[in-house]
C-alpha cells in the first residue's frame, strides 16, 4: 500500500490498538500481581511496543516517499465547464501537502 493517507489512518488505528492492549495488560498485571516475572514482562512489553511503533513510523515514512503528490480531483474537471459560480473551484491531492 502506498497511499499515504490510508497508511496514516491505519497507523493511528494501530497506535490506539497498541495503547488498548497495553492498558489491558497493565490491568491484568495489577490483578494478578505476578511479582516474580515483573522485570521480564516489562522488558518484553516495552520491546514489543518499541518494535511496533518503529514499524508504524517506518510505514508512514515509506508510504510518504512512495506517493508523489498529484491532483486526483478537481471541480470543474479538466477540459469541462464550470456549471455555476455558486460551486467553488475544488482541488484535491492524493496525499497531504504542505500549506506553506
Amino acid at each position: 500500500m502506498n497511499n499515504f493517507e490510508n497508511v496514516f489512518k491505519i497507523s493511528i488505528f494501530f497506535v490506539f490498538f497498541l495503547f488498548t492492549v497495553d492498558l489491558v495488560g497493565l490491568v491484568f498485571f495489577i490483578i494478578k500481581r505476578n511479582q516474580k516475572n515483573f522485570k521480564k514482562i516489562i522488558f518484553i512489553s516495552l520491546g514489543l511496543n518499541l518494535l511496533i511503533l518503529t514499524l508504524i513510523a517506518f510505514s508512514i515514512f515509506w508510504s510518504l516517499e512512495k506517493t508523489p503528490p498529484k491532483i486526483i480531483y478537481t471541480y470543474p474537471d479538466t477540459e469541462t465547464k464550470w456549471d455555476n459560480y455558486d460551486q467553488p473551484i475544488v482541488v484535491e491531492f492524493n496525499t497531504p501537502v504542505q500549506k506553506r
Partner: protein
Amino acid sequence: MNLIHLYKKDKLDPSINPNIQGYWVWKDFLGIPSLTKIGYFYPEQSTFNDQRIVIYITGISRPLKNENHEYGFVFDSPNLPMLTYSTPFNGDIEVPIDTDLELNFNKPNTGYAEFSYSIEPEIKFTIQETSPTQILVNFEEDLQQSQKYVFKMQVRSLKKNFKTGEILETTNFEDAARIAFYTKREPLIKSFSPTGTGALQDTDILIRFEVPMNSESVLEKLDITPTINFDYEWNERLDLLKITPTDPLPKDTSFKVTLKQGVLSKSGGISTKDITYEFKTIGPIIVKSVEPQNNSSNVNENSIIKVTFDQAVSRESAQSKFSITPNVSGSFEWENDFTMIFRPNKLNFSTTYTVKINTGIESIYGLPNTEEFSSTFTVRSNQIIIQMPQYFQPQSPPSFSCNVYAARMALAWKGYNVGIISLIAEMGYNDGYQNGHWLGNPYKEYVGNYDGSWGYGVYWDPIQKLFTNRGIQTELYKGWNLSGLAKAVEQGHPVIIWRYNGESANYDKNWVAQDGTYVVGINGQHGGVVTGFRGSSDNPTHIFLNDPWYGKIWIQASLFDYYWSRLGRVGLVIY
C-alpha cells in the same frame, strides 16, 4: 514544457488565468494546520462566459519533504443562457393579435448575461420573468393584424462583483435569436394606414378592403375617436376608402378607427366583429437609436456616430443639440431628415465617449424633444490580430508538446493539417532520461516521447525544418525585440516563439545532451504563436498569442518580453 518538476521547497501557490478575484481556503488535513489535502477557491467576481480558464498550482510539497511539484488544469467558464424555443416560434403564421411572446432558455440567467430585445415594427412591450428559464414578452397593446413581426434578442456577457453587484466589464452585444411570425389576417380589410406612431397631421387614412364594399354601409359603421371632420373618396372598384381630415390632426394624439360589425361588402358579405385600428399622431421627437450602442466596448476607432430620430427634424437644430465628450472635431452628414451622422475626425483608442442629445431640437412636423438623451461607448484599444486556427495541447493526460502544437497552428494557417505524432516523427525524438536530466538535444530533435505526452519540447531549428520541408518561407531571429516582433505581425506574418510559461517555478535547467551538446533550458519552457499586438508596432503595449495551453490570450508586453527573454527572445517568422 514541464508541468511537473522536483525542485526546492516553495509555498503552495495557485494562480488563475485570466485572473479572477477571490480567495483560496485550504482545509486542514486531520486537524493539522500546516497540512492540507483539499482546497477551495471562492470567486468574488464572475468571468466572461465561455472563456478558457487555466489554474496552475506550484509549490506542492509533501510533509517533511523539500520539493516543489507543479500541476495545472483547464476548464471553461459557464455558458450564456440560450433560447431553446419560443411561442410563437420562428416562422409561425396566423398568430393571434393578443398574443404574448414566451421565450424559454436552456438555463436560468443568473445575472451574468444581459439581454436586449427589440421588435419590428415597433410596439411597446414589457418583460416579465415567469420562471428562472422563461421570459414572457407582454405587448402593451394588440398586435396589428396581417403583419409580419420580427423579434430580435441580443445578449452580452457581464463581469460582475458578487458582493456589490457592480458590473466590472462587459462584452459587446451579439445576436442571440431572431423570431419572425405573422399575425392573423384581418377579415375584409387588406391594409390600413397609418399605423403605429408618428402619423403626420395632414395624413390621409387609407382602408383597403379585400373585396369591393357597400360604401354606405362602411361609412355608417365607421367610427373615429376622437372625432374629426373629414372628406372621403372611394376608388372605382370600391375597395379603397381614402379619408382626408378637413383640419390638421392634433399632435401627440392617439386615434382609434373602428369598423363596427355588420359592414356589408358589395356582394353581400358581412363582417362578424368590430375591426379596430389605432395610430398616433406625431409628438415630441424621440431618439430611436444611437450607434455605437449604449455601453458598447471595443468600438472601432473609425466608427461614425449615427443618431436616428423617430421623425423628421431640423438638421441645424439637431446638430446644435449634439455633443460628444471628450470633445472630438468632426463633420455632420444626413442620410435623411431622420438620421444624422457625425463623422469624427479621430477617435482615440481606449477612450470612453459620451454622446448627448439635448432637449429642444426643432421638429419639422412634430414637437421638440423634451427628454435629454445620453449614450456612451468605448473605443477599442489599438490592436492587430492575425486570424489563425487554435489547437490545444491535451490536458488529460497532460501533453508536453506545446512547441509542436505552435508549429501545428502555423502550419494549419498555411493550409497544412498535420497530426502531432507525424510532426514529432518528422523531427525525430529522443526520450532518454538519466540522473534527472533528458538525454535529447532540442536543437535537433524533440526531447520527449513519440506522442508528446512526456518530455521537455523542441527548439527552433527542427521546427523551422517542418516549414522548409513544405516549401514555406520562414526567417529565424535570435536576440530579437518586441518592436521587430510587432512589425512582423503588422505585416501579416505570425511568429512562433519560445518562452517561460509564467506559472512554473522559474529557474534554469541546462543539461548536456547525449551527443555532447550543451542545452540551455528553463523550467516551464513553453511555446506559442504571436498573432497580434496592441499599441503601435514601435512600442506595443500587449502581445496576443495563440497559445496551445491558455488559448487566445493577451499578455502585457513588458511581462511577455521577460518570459520571452528567458530563452533568448527567439522568433520564427512564418511568411
